[in-house]
């Protein structure tokens, strides 16, 4: 029974994240609309939940976004999958688990990889249209800059608040004793 309740809770959470991103945040003024809570939610899931649950949540988030998106179906699912596997690889091999610094580095790499993969797919699917290559567009880099600022800022704030209440997230690699 508890299992089903948790599953329902996760489904509700996924819907909430997608609703907030697609209808509320996307309609905010320019700089604010660059907050990417789908990606932020996924990064937080990676730190707090087991990998299998994270993949299932990435699948849910991707499919839901694909349903509401006007791009080729599967682009968001594929991108989120790739980002999750890449982030997990970085987390397992490069970063010290659960320190603010690893969170920030992971957020940085996840944001970059998410946007490069997603816009790469958009570009490939619109190859024959007159849409220019995204990497040559100043707007893309400006947007990416804003997204990085927001994502890193929100993650930093989140962990600063968390560190006030728990010792689980203290930076492990700075402790030399």
């Amino acid at each position: 029974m508890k299992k089903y309740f948790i599953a329902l809770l996760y489904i509700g959470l996924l819907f909430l994240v997608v609703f907030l991103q697609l209808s509320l945040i996307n309609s905010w003024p320019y700089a604010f609309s660059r907050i990417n809570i789908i990606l932020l939610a996924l990064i937080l899931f990676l730190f707090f939940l087991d990998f299998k649950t994270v993949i299932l949540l990435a699948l849910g988030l991707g499919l839901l976004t694909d349903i509401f998106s006007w791009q080729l179906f599967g682009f968001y699912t594929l991108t989120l999958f790739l980002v999750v596997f890449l982030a997990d690889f970085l987390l397992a091999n490069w970063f010290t688990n659960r320190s603010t610094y690893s969170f920030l580095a992971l957020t940085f790499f996840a944001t970059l990889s998410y946007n490069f993969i997603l816009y790469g797919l958009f570009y490939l699917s619109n190859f024959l249209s007159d849409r220019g290559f995204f990497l040559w567009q100043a707007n893309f880099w400006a947007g990416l800059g804003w997204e990085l600022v927001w994502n890193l800022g929100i993650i930093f704030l989140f962990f600063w608040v968390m560190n006030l209440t728990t010792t689980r997230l203290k930076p492990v690699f700075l402790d030399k004793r």
Partner: protein
Amino acid sequence: MFKNRIKPHIKIIVVAGLLIFLHFIGVLSPLERLTVKVSQPIFNKLYSLGSDWRKDYNQKNSQVDLNAKVNDLENELGTLVVANARLKDLENENQKLREYLNFFSQQQMNYILAKVTSQENFLDSVKYGQNIIINQGSVNNLIPGLVVINGQGVVVGKVLEVKENSARVCLLINNSCKLAVSILNQNRTIGVTEGNLGLTVKINFVGQTEKINQGDIVVTSGLEKDIPAGLVLGRVSQINNNENDVWQNINVEPLVNFDNLGIVSVVLP
């Protein structure tokens, strides 16, 4: 090592692939339709909350610059009174032209109201999302290419794609949103508009011989299938006619506030 991390989760990846496949063969369509339909009221509510805040935010930003501009505006007032008189004259002329050519009056026009549910937001777009999503689709006889207007009957954009219960509309300021128009000058110059940097609209390839004045009204030409003639888009704000160029480029200032699009109308054929 990367392979070892993927291996235990291969089942989930296969399920994802299967779900994407089922989407393309249409098996998931009923479920997707239901999800979209059930979600639309929530989307409407959240979108209107977000766009209200955007409107307030942009207004507040404008107020900061407002004081500095008051003096300039006072100086311009005299000029504007003259310009206003000229525009009223043009409006009368426009009205007469509409009557003369038997354009559709707003009452005669067949249209359907739609709510804006969300806005596409890509990193490579400029200020606005440039594409909006509305809550009417193919079940309401919407087809790609139909023109979308606001409450005052001013053109907002054009339907790009249609799903059963929703449609994707490109705004005039979107670079890929093109519309056949005519300028209400002496010759009724025709041309095609396209968005300019997500802020204004431009008309390219207008011959040097065409005489266009600042303030001329731009309307749909009626040369496009399913789009009636005479729907107002905006007015000419700048004319770039370098004598050495073959064409002159016209900048058009849209008469729509794209921050304030809650409800729009789609003009049906």
